[in-house]
């Protein structure tokens, strides 16, 4: 602890503390260490009360306190020309031009979803959306990034169906379009699925609201749902320890969502902020009122008094600590001046949103919790009295040991050509179809068609493309804008397992490439860093290396990290998931009428590959599908080439030179061609001219490649642009026919009918989910 920090004096000298014998073991039971307990005693200057200990245990949990990650997260660049609000608030905010600003954030709901996928995923959406309108922004889009085990297991199909239904139920009910995301299936997630939700909101720059409490005498108002015992320690406890086998017993710690109340809260809160009636606002998420109140007080350098008796409850007999740490959903804490309170109440009443004064801002610097039924004496009512600043910001910081896992060198040295590969057009075509139908490649329509993708009437590019594009459009303030934002999420956990530094960089590079494909310029990212236990040196190593990789590429690209979330302890039965640092990237589109999509547009158009294919099958979907192998050296990533390729694509889109553009990722060139063909309902005739093994030409996942189609009249102009930017390319063939044919100098190497590949691609996921295998 920093001894120069002054701890403001306590308000109560006569608080009922715990027995000094009982407190330390209770602290341990609540997930604290004895050292952490000693620190609490030091800050409090005495043994804590029961309420205090509970609040500390949650505020200093890994989920709220970022004990193992805070030190590392400092490596990220967080500022830039666009940035209006970096990390540390409910969401990051960037300027998108013309006075518009976009707030966005990604958050995990992994542990609740692994126990109860429907409510877990639903409340994940709800929590993330609240973080957005808390900042004063109207939620305009959501995305989701999900990881499950393999679908041959009934439990995994149940988790997928449940999570998708939960997102569908919640997102559709609140009228926020789900415009994109990703899903990946791998054994590593069998016991610990990942559900990361990303929400994006739009506001005028001057509407930006921060959760900074100020003005002693101002009222603390709880808005929204009543407070119950549901989700006590939900996010904080579940997300701060490993899974026991009896995960079902933890169901009561999963929150239950009420999207209708969320919708009412969105409307009421935005109206309140629009009318400038609030001093500050925060949503009640992990650790409930305790977290929001102490953080708001600490940010504003003030104190806050909360009367637990006034917080509306949904069940009787709740202890003060239960009220203070409940994670009941759809609640907000607002700071309101006494003069504005009547108007605030009136607006909340009109929207049917309960609003109750539960406390006030003080000048004590202390977070004081009262129970006014205990006594008539204001001092005797106090059940917790803590320095707000220390509670919110002084969770211990750990720098645990990290060691490079031995498997990394071993797997990197794996010789791809030590295993057999298909030969001949039939065998290669069979493998191609198998890849196309792999759940990691096949169309996600079965998922996203359960989400309303178009509500708000601004979705320009729907799910299924490289990145979603949403028009700023009619913002409800009478203004119209043809500007847009592009959004995508990305992470290949397999890559990060093989090489966390490069894997994290590739996640970023691919996200940026996805944006380039629609013509957008990356502006900023949010991240959701999903890892196993940080207390395991080999896991912590992958965490540090992922952060290093990400921080370095962010600097290189000049793209800051403005918000994010860390989810540790993603383990089951002692084994950690693949490191999965998911990136959510937002980019700018100057004019939504000048964009590009992945589908081929017209027969006869030239098909051109920007970038170059190398013999890089390490970590590929091909190896996994054909040999059940996750091995080999990752594809290289040359940051300068990557930037040039993206620049070339973006400029070509903006000059209207491209008919289609599609990023090459899992499955490589053959899959990218197939996806453009299926999306455009047009075949392709391709001739590959390289000296690579056939499987590498077709399925290598070399980075910095984009597949484009160009109308004949514009080919020359486009090639001039590529030459000007010194970007390698190859002419592959042309769009046409009802067949997909790929040949090399020796003749055809892959042949497939468009009808067949369309059926395989479109239908595979649904067939896998509805299968009865494994019962």
């Amino acid at each position: 602890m920093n001894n120069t920090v002054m701890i403001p004096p306590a308000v109560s000298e006569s608080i009922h503390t715990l027995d000094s014998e009982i407190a330390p073991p209770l602290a341990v039971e609540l997930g604290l260490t004895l050292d952490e307990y000693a620190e609490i005693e030091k800050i409090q200057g005495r043994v804590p009360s029961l309420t205090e200990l509970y609040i500390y245990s949650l505020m200093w949990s890994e989920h709220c306190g970022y004990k193992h990650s805070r030190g590392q997260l400092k490596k990220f660049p967080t500022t830039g020309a666009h940035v209006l609000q970096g990390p540390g608030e409910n969401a990051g905010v960037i300027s998108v031009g013309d006075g518009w600003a976009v707030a966005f954030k990604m958050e995990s709901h992994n542990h609740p979803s692994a126990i109860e996928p429907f409510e877990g995923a639903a409340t994940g959406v709800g929590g993330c959306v609240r973080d957005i309108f808390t900042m004063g922004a109207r939620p305009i889009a959501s995305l989701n990034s999900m990881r499950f085990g393999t679908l041959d297991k009934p439990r995994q199909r149940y988790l997928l169906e449940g999570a998708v239904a939960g997102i569908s139920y919640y997102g559709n009910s609140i009228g926020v379009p789900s415009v994109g995301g990703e899903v990946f299936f791998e054994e590593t997630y069998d016991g610990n699925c990942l559900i990361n939700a990303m929400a994006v909101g739009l506001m005028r720059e001057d509407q930006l609201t921060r959760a900074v409490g100020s003005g002693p005498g101002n009222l603390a108002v709880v808005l929204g749902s009543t407070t119950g015992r549901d989700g006590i320690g939900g996010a904080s406890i579940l997300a701060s320890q490993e899974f026991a086998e009896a995960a079902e017993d933890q169901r009561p710690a999963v929150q239950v969502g009420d999207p209708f109340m969320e919708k009412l809260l969105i409307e009421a809160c935005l109206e309140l902020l629009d009318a400038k009636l609030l001093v500050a606002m925060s949503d009640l998420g992990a650790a409930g009122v305790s977290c929001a109140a102490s953080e708001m007080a600490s940010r504003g350098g003030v104190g806050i008094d909360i009367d637990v008796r006034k917080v509306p409850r949904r069940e009787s007999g709740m202890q003060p600590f239960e009220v203070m740490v409940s994670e009941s959903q759809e609640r907000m804490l607002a700071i309101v001046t006494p003069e504005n309170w009547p108007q605030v109440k009136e607006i909340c009443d009109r929207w049917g949103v309960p609003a109750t004064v539960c406390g006030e801002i003080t000048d004590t610097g202390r977070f004081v919790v009262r129970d006014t039924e205990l006594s008539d004496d204001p001092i005797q009512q106090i059940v917790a009295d803590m320095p707000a600043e220390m509670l919110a910001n002084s969770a211990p910081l750990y720098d645990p040991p990290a060691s490079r896992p031995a498997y990394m060198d071993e797997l990197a040295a794996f010789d791809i050509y030590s295993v057999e590969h298909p030969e001949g057009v039939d065998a290669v075509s069979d493998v191609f179809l198998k890849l196309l139908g792999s759940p990691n490649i096949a169309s996600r329509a079965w998922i996203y068609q359960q989400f309303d993708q178009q509500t708000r009437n601004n979705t320009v590019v729907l799910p299924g493309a490289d990145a979603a594009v949403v028009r700023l459009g009619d913002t409800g303030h009478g203004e119209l804008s043809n500007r847009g934002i592009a959004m995508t999420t990305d992470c290949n956990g397999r890559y990060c397992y093989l090489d966390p530094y490069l894997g994290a960089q590739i996640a970023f590079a691919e996200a940026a490439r996805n944006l380039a494909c629609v013509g957008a310029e990356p502006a900023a990212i949010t991240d959701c860093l999903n890892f196993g236990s940080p207390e395991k040196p080999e896991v912590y190593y992958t965490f540090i290396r992922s952060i290093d990789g990400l921080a370095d590429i962010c600097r290189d690209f000049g793209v800051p990290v403005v918000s994010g979330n860390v989810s540790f302890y993603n383990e089951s039965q002692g084994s950690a998931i693949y490191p999965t640092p998911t990136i959510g990237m937002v980019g700018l589109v100057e004019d939504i009428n000048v964009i590009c999509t992945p589908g081929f547009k017209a027969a006869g158009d030239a098909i051109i590959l920007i970038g170059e294919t190398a013999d890089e099958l390490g970590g590929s979907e091909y190896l996994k599908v054909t040999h059940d192998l996750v091995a080999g050296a990752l594809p290289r990533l040359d940051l300068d080439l990557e930037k040039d390729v993206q620049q070339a694509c973006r400029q070509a889109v903006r000059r209207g030179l491209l008919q289609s553009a599609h990023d090459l990722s899992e499955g490589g060139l053959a899959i990218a061609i197939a996806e453009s063909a299926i999306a455009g309902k047009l075949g392709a005739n391709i001739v590959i001219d390289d000296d690579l093994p056939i499987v590498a030409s077709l399925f290598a996942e070399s980075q910095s490649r984009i597949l484009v189609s160009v109308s004949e009249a514009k080919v020359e102009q486009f090639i001039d642009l590529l030459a000007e930017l010194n970007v390698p390319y190859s002419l592959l063939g042309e769009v046409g026919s009802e067949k997909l044919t790929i040949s090399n100098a020796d003749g055809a190497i892959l042949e497939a009918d468009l009808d067949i590949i369309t059926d395989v691609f479109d239908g595979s996921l649904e067939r896998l989910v509805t299968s009865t295998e494994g019962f």
Partner: protein
Amino acid sequence: MIAVSDFRFGVIIFPGTSCGQDVVHAIRHLGFDADYVWHADSSLDGFDAVVIPSGASYGNYLRSGAIASHSPIMEAVKDYAELGKPVLGISNGFQILTEAGLLPGEMLQNKSVKYVSKSVQISVQNNSCQWLDIAPGTELTLPISHGFGSFYVDQDTLKEMEANGQIVLCYAQCDCAAADQEDASCSLDSIAAVSNRQGNVLGMMPYPERVTDGIAGTDGGAFFSAIVKHIKEVA
């Protein structure tokens, strides 16, 4: 005669309604006027047509549209419709109209038991209602987005509705498109829009406002334009 730009739509907002702004935007894009009407209000004075947009009114709790159908404004909508004035319900708005008894039938959960959101081909079955003047057989591309969109009425009512030309739109990819001459109507599964007997009240599952300003198509504008044209002609 009403000047086009003076034609004023009322767009009703219930707690939970989320597509009101989309509808107002689409109507204004077409050059008409539109304003919001609050669920607790009881008057529709001054509106030339009324739209009940989609979104989960009252969270779709109890049953889609059930709670909203008892709102004060719905008494006004009933009176308004009884006077022969035009009312359009879109998706959840359609469900509210059936719950309110302004349209026959009711909405069951999708056969897939899943929410469905996608663009579909819709074929015009009958254009005798006031909200549509496109020739029967024409195909439109319109987005749907609903969990409870399986229209159901008893067989007698269905026959009556067919005879009265109340089956307005059908999903083109259902069998109905291939139905023989004698029974050129839709089967229950494929009904996408129905009108009341008088033709002034229309309920439709597709969202016309999403394909009006060109962002995702333009086939939806026809519904708003048709009612303006109709009212101008009778005025």
